[in-house]
């Protein structure tokens, strides 16, 4: 069975994916087009090659690019063209030449990440258009880290308005999919450290970091990264931006994203492979491995948000612009009611009222109504059916239905039973016309093979923004 996030399952969701390596790499085209013109550019190129070999020697099966050179306005955009091809010319350094790119994108991951973003309250969409201008940073990084497209990639934009909470949630939704699909992922932030370039052309041999102040800040950042203190750099992000960043639109956000991709850790194993100037900006190649170096600790300094509830949907002026999505998207959640015959599990979503997940009575197990919400983060695979203001959203009924079946399986396993023991199901759909077909297809792939009796009803609404719920009776 395949779930909302593309993970192939046989029963309970297996969370096996992980980030096996994180990289910070520069975006300028010089290491691709003319490394031989400057010893420092060559060292950046060599460091890129070193990082590429480390990736090749790992069991990585996905490269995730967060590029500061692809700004977006309508939320975040994720590249979903399976094979973007074009010729890239840098807006400033066009005289260095052109880069012909032909990339291999993991479209299944891209689509799943997009859905996971929406489920966590983010504005998000995929893009798949012939001729789309993949940004110079992504092209340079993939050209040097993955020149033969051995590993599929996914590329995400930087929203010009996004704050730390939104960027953190973006990483968490990405990790939802990494884990669910069992990926061994390499997370890459494409960025400069200090980004002030010389405003006039220079000869290659004249290159240096633009100012001593920029250089000192860069070295401090790299000192932290060498010690694996990624989260500390994330927490200093705004200060760093004020001190050494030219005020371009995207700020110093990639450290927020990369830190959240690593569970906001401060004890990674860091290795600075190179640090050099490129036309005055600070360019560094840094590799961070998840192995703990024994120092530092998780010291998160702000709310560790799970859902984004910021100023999305500003088109509708009647709604509040604050409040968490979890609160605005449904009723209060309860701990499941305990009792002698009650069956409860942390692997199922919390109830929306005072009742248990199930009760065992004699040889039968009666389940409370089961929806697709996920345990822990309360996200809705396939996306919610409406936003916080009640505006309808597009959603995936198949993904929701699969998630319902997964939740049923978890509860039954907690009860010592299994999905194979289901004998009767009452299903509730909020939109029979729209959803019955998709729901029915997933049913045929899952419970349909078990063979319980079934009744399907159309109802007006459910307490949370979901489209399907099932009431189940099973043998113990």
């Amino acid at each position, binding site marked *: 069975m395949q779930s909302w996030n593309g993970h192939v399952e046989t029963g309970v969701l297996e969370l096996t994916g992980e980030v096996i390596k994180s990289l910070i790499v520069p975006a300028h085209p010089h290491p691709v087009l003319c490394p031989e013109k400057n010893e420092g550019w060559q060292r950046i190129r060599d460091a890129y090659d070193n990082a590429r070999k480390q990736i090749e020697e790992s069991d990585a099966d996905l490269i995730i690019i967060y590029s500061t050179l692809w700004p977006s306005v*309508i939320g975040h955009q994720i590249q979903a063209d399976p094979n973007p091809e074009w010729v890239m010319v840098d807006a400033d350094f066009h*005289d260095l030449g052109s880069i012909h790119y032909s990339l291999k994108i993991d479209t299944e991951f891209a689509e799943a990440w997009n859905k996971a973003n929406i489920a966590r309250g983010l*504005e998000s969409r995929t893009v798949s258009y012939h001729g789309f201008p993949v940004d110079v940073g992504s092209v340079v990084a993939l050209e040097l880290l993955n020149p033969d497209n051995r590993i599929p990639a996914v590329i995400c934009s930087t929203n010009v308005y996004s704050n730390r909470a939104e960027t953190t949630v973006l990483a968490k939704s990405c990790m939802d999919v990494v884990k669910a699909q069992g990926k061994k992922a390499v997370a890459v932030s494409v960025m400069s450290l200090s980004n002030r370039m010389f405003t006039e052309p220079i000869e290659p041999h004249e290159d240096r970091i633009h100012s001593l102040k920029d250089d000192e800040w860069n070295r401090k950042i790299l000192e932290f990264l060498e010690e694996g203190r990624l989260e500390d750099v994330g927490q200093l992000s705004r200060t760093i931006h004020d001190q050494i960043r030219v005020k371009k639109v995207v700020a110093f956000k990639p450290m927020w994203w990369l830190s959240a991709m690593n569970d906001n850790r401060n004890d990674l194993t860091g290795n600075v492979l190179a640090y050099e100037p490129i036309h005055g900006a600070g360019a560094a190649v840094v590799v961070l491995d998840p192995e703990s170096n024994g120092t530092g600790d998780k010291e998160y300094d702000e709310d560790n948000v799970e859902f984004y509830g910021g100023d999305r949907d500003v088109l509708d002026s009647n709604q509040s612009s604050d409040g968490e999505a979890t609160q605005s998207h449904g009723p209060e959640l309860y701990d499941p009611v305990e009792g002698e015959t009650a069956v409860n599990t942390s692997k199922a979503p919390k109830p929306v009222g005072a009742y248990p997940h199930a009760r065992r009575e004699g040889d039968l197990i009666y389940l409370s109504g089961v929806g697709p919400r996920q345990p822990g983060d309360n996200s809705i695979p396939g996306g919610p059916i409406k936003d916080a203001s009640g505006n309808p959203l597009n959603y995936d009924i198949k993904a929701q239905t699969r998630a319902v079946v997964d939740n049923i399986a978890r509860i039954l396993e907690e009860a010592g039973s299994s999905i194979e023991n289901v004998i009767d199901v009452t299903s509730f759909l909020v939109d029979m016309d729209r959803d019955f077909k998709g729901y029915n297809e997933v049913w045929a792939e899952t419970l349909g093979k078990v063979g319980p009796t079934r009744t399907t009803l159309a109802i007006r609404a459910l307490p949370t923004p979901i489209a399907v719920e099932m009431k189940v009776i099973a043998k113990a």
Partner: protein
Amino acid sequence: MANGGIVAGCLAPHPPHLVYAENPEQNEPVSEGGWEQLRWGYERLRESLKDVEYDVIVILSPHWQTYVGTHFIGVEKCSSKSVDPVFPNLFRFNYDLEIDVELAQAIHDQAKSEGMSVKMMTNPDFRVDYGTIVSCHMVRPEWDKPIVSISSNRSLSYYSVEVMQEMMIELGKSTAKAIEASGKKCLLIASNSLSHRHFVTETNPPEDMSKEHITSHAMHLWDMRMIELMREGKSQQIINEMPEFCEQAIAETDGGALTWLLAAMGVPEEPAILHGYGTIIGTGNAIMEWPCRNWGA
């Protein structure tokens, strides 16, 4: 050759939505229309320019962003597809345009002689930015005039609005000198909106006009103030208030195009004509014309 001149200057905003709504054959997406107030404004501008003779369109667009000086396209024929990286669902435009490299080089050389950091772009693979294409298409959809494409030097990002203005004033003067020396009659376009705070969500369909409005009252007030100043011919005051405008309205004039335009026209005291105003995903857009040909200079 001498006695060239600027026949008109235009503030011509470039949101790709306008081309999308026009459904020209060059653009791949298809719409049901939308943003008519602005598109009718462009119609009025085209009507106003209908009988005006000019040889070249000279345009400065904030979407060719350069951080190492000001650049000029130096390739005679540019043909490719322009895809807006922000709104690729709206703008995938197959263009085939001609560059007046001679005039571009002349402006470049004039600016260089006066100490500016400039560079000719001669890479044939270079894609023309969508801002240039949208503004040129809306002003002259026939595509029968060569253009000079000038990048937006992001000196604002490196220094301040004040420095940006000083540099753009000098570039505007250089542009005017080079045009005069060339003997060519030119239409100048500053390709930018006014207030520039976007909505961060998009309607379905994007041309659903029931959701279109300015993002805030403050943005509206700023837009109206700048339009009034333009209509009253108070160009110097626009330049004076530009720092506040850019900061408070997140104005796209921070790219320098409007200041460059005003400087090239000699900071005109003659009133500009308002052909249209409207919002696009919350940003404020005005179509203005300074009919220099009528000033009897």
